[in-house]
């Protein structure tokens, strides 16, 4: 019995719960001095501590605590004057100690919120997502199960273990239950994760790359009949690795739950794994029998008791909230909503801002990043930010165009040169011998040569048939190797032939 989304939300109210794991971008691991660089040879970034050799002890990375407090403050949380690490005990080969150092009943940040604004049928509406806690923990190693049908440990022929990731600092941000979003639940969730990502990026505490796993979202979804105040059974969808997937996963789970409920079946409490290709989830571990993690305070670490003055210092140094920042930019630049969204979606807002800060006109800066540069990125199928062109380059190019030293066409050549790695714009201009032909006498000579070369065309123009001028302008441009300003050529040519723009 297949249901449409509209049928689902007409009958049921979704209740969400979101758990976001963020890998911090500290140089060293949470409890030892090992490097955290992504993509190193397996098991090269390990030591007695993160391999859990007998006798080794953890020590806390102060920088990770600072980052976590910043996150808590940015999410409007209270910072606990005294919090503790706890051991979460369970056996798994990629967890060297067979317990994870985490926080349990005494997390470092509690009771915050994030406001997100989304477009509804009644116009823009703000939803408040309440944050229950933000806590610190360590990541596990990675297992690669080889052979067997499922790619899971059961049935595998053998498993490979890489402990480079073991002990990377993780922050877990857990919301309270989120009711009242109705049919907008998937969009609210997506907006929340996007807002979190922006906040984390503005704090500079994480790379927040969902595709590399430095930001991971688990989405809890349950349904209840509209009007009911009893919570339904939830499923917990893992492996949601993009903003779009957050939306798709929740929408998909809402439909799946509703179909089960409508046909009189029970929703199982379990983890589900999101499948990027189908947009569906597949059943994972059952959570009907709650796992007993035997949490207890980590005796190897002293409690975390951050100094109140230090917290206030961190609070005072917080950057402007990204959503507020965006609104301010939009007003300053007088950009329509659509253009603003285009910049956000293309992930160029910050480089545009940087380009403007270097003196470029906002409209010009935007048009370079969203236009030519974005086109090249698409062509090469890479992210705009992975191209080797900076805000400084673009600002310089804009300034050269404004000064009349480059035409738009020449500027595009310079952009290509920068992206091709030929150097800074000034170096490319010098190396390629690019210069605007502004010398009227040189241009006039070229115009005269063109008219002499095509006397019939020149006559047509003299007779008032202006479209014919194009061929002559083309010749002039060719003659000047494209370095002339086409508009100027046109003006001079028309004047030369006794015409003016109609």
């Amino acid at each position, binding site marked *: 019995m297949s249901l449409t989304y509209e049928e689902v939300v007409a009958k049921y109210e979704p209740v969400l719960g979101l758990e976001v794991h963020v890998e911090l971008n500290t140089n060293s691991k949470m409890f030892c001095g090992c490097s955290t660089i992504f993509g190193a040879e397996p098991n090269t970034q390990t030591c007695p501590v993160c391999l859990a*050799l007998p006798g080794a002890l953890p020590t806390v990375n102060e920088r990770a605590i600072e980052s976590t407090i910043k996150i808590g403050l940015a999410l409007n949380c209270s910072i606990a004057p005294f919090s503790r690490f706890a*051991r979460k005990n369970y056996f798994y080969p990629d967890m060297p100690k067979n317990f994870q150092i985490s926080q349990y009943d005494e997390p470092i940040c509690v009771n915050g919120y994030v406001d997100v604004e989304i477009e509804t049928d009644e116009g823009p509406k703000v939803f408040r997502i309440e944050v229950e806690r933000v806590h610190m923990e360590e990541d596990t190693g990675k297992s690669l199960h080889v052979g067997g049908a499922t790619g899971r440990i059961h049935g595998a022929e053998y498993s490979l273990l890489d402990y480079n990731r073991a002990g990377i600092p993780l922050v877990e941000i857990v919301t309270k239950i989120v009711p009242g979003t109705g049919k907008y639940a998937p969009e609210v969730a997506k907006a929340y994760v996007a807002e979190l990502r922006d906040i984390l990026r503005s704090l500079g505490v994480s790379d927040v790359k969902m595709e590399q796993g430095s930001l991971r979202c688990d989405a809890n979804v349950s349904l209840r009949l509209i009007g009911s105040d009893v919570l339904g059974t939830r499923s917990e969808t893992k492996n949601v690795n993009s903003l779009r997937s957050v939306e798709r996963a929740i929408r998909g789970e809402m439909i799946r739950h509703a179909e089960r409920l409508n046909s009189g079946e029970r929703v199982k409490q379990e983890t589900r794994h999101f499948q990027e290709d189908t947009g569906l989830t597949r059943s994972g571990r059952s959570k009907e029998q709650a796992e007993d993690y035997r949490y207890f305070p980590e*005796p190897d670490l002293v409690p975390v008791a951050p100094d109140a003055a230090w917290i206030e210092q961190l609070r005072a140094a917080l950057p402007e909230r990204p959503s507020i920042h965006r609104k301010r930019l939009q007003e300053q630049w007088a950009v329509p909503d659509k253009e603003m969204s285009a910049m956000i979606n293309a992930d160029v807002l910050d480089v545009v801002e940087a380009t403007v800060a270097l003196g470029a006109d906002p409209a010009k800066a935007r048009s370079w990043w969203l236009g030519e540069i974005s086109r090249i990125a698409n062509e090469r199928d890479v992210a705009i930010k992975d191209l080797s062109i900076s805000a400084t380059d673009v600002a310089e190019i804009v300034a050269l165009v404004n000064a009349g030293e480059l035409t738009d066409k020449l500027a595009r050549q310079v952009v290509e040169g920068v992206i091709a790695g030929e150097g800074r714009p000034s170096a490319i201009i010098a190396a390629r011998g690019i210069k605007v032909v502004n010398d009227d006498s040189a241009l006039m000579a070229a115009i005269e040569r063109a008219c002499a070369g095509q006397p019939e065309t020149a006559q047509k123009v003299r007779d008032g048939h202006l479209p014919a001028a194009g061929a002559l302008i083309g010749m002039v441009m060719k003659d000047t190797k494209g370095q002339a300003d086409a508009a100027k050529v046109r003006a001079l040519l028309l004047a030369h032939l006794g015409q003016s723009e109609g």
Partner: protein
Amino acid sequence: MIRNSASEMASKLASGEVTSVALTQAHLDQISAVDKDVHAFLHVDTEGALSQAAAVDAKRKSGEKLSRLAGVPLALKDVMTQKGIPTTCGSKILEGWRPPYDSTVVTNLKKNGIVILGKTNMDEFAMGSSTENSAYGPTHNPWDLTRIPGGSGGGSAAALAAFEAPLAIGTDTGGSIRQPAAVTGTVGVKPTYGGVSRYGLVAFSSSLDQAGPCARTVLDAALLHEAIAGYDPKDSTSINAPVPAVVVAAKAGNVKGMKIGVVKELNGDGYQKGVRTRFEESLELLAAAGAEIVEVSAPNFEYALAAYYLIAPSECSSNLARFDAMRYGLRVGDNDGASAESVMNLTREVGFGREVKRRIILGTYALSSGYYDAYYGSAQKVRTLITQDFNKAFEKADVLVSPTCPTTAFKIGEKTNDPLAMYLNDIATIPVNMAGIGGMSLPSGVAGEDGLPVGFQIMSPVMKDDRMYSVGASLEAALLSKWGAPLLSTIPALAGSK
């Protein structure tokens, strides 16, 4: 030569009367002669010890300034990592493992030029009071080879009593330094928790474990204490403060004007007659030396043993989870098609002994959801109450004293089937670990009824470890002048002993 104290050996080394190589060789010879009967050592690093000794001799020859104990040999409890040297913790599960790193204690020993002879036997993962729980067979008490040398650090204590080493390192979670010292007639000190780094000490119960010095005299213990103690950034629970002036205190041995509190609850019923007699005699000697003896009460000590047997197993159930055959040590059942889970299970089944399994099961249960508050939670409350009892007692007295153990050394095999009777051995030592304070055991003579050594325990407040050395040195001097010779000079000679 091997019967000298460590400080006497140090003086002879400094004066050039003896070389470290000769001294080390003499101890290695003694080990060869007697350890087949005593079984104090699990591993003797002959080559390594002699080369460390030669290095110290060379430095001394070149006129380099050396630390006081440079060149003196030492026995290391097999629970401490030493780079490249087998470290088993008395367990099959670590058989063949050679750590790639030095514990901080070993780093400090090496820095001081102390020569490490080898690794000493112990109850598996330091769980036990007799060294009978070692997977490699029991250690025998040099006073009577049919008796236990205490535990878990029976190997370290027996090595001292058998003159196989003048110094040793022990670790003390509930009495594993002090009880073996008591039953072998040696000196053992558990410093304040956090006084000596735990980095490289294979954890039994993290919040209770503490490494400390074992020796034949109070001054020797103080010299070793000073060499291994101090703040270590690698141990988050390490105390960032100067090491108490233990050597100064041990040299002065002055108790004039000190108030010594006798803990009412740690005496009387359940304590062997000879133990009580020796204890009373020591109190009289301390009073005669100018101390004021007062009585203090610690009503919550009654619950210490019960609380200890919840906290220590809980922590150990988690600490020992890492022994899973994945990265080091024993691996059992790794045949074609065996799952990681079955290899883990089989390895732990085969690799751990009965007592270790008993405590893992106990701790797993105590931490379980639904039982946590009643067991682990209540035990932590008792711990707080015990600390409060100590705080109150230390308002009345500078140090507290008691017999170290209720009895002298029992026979090997006598209590192996009665874990509760075994646990009761530590009734007087456990409160010290629960509160994280310092504790020392030194010999107070032998019990009249069995001629076996009796220990006298001194307890001092957090980071006031110097006080127990003052009292210990004073009592040691008084007993020495009473006996005319050290207690260990009366130990029966071992077959083949030098």
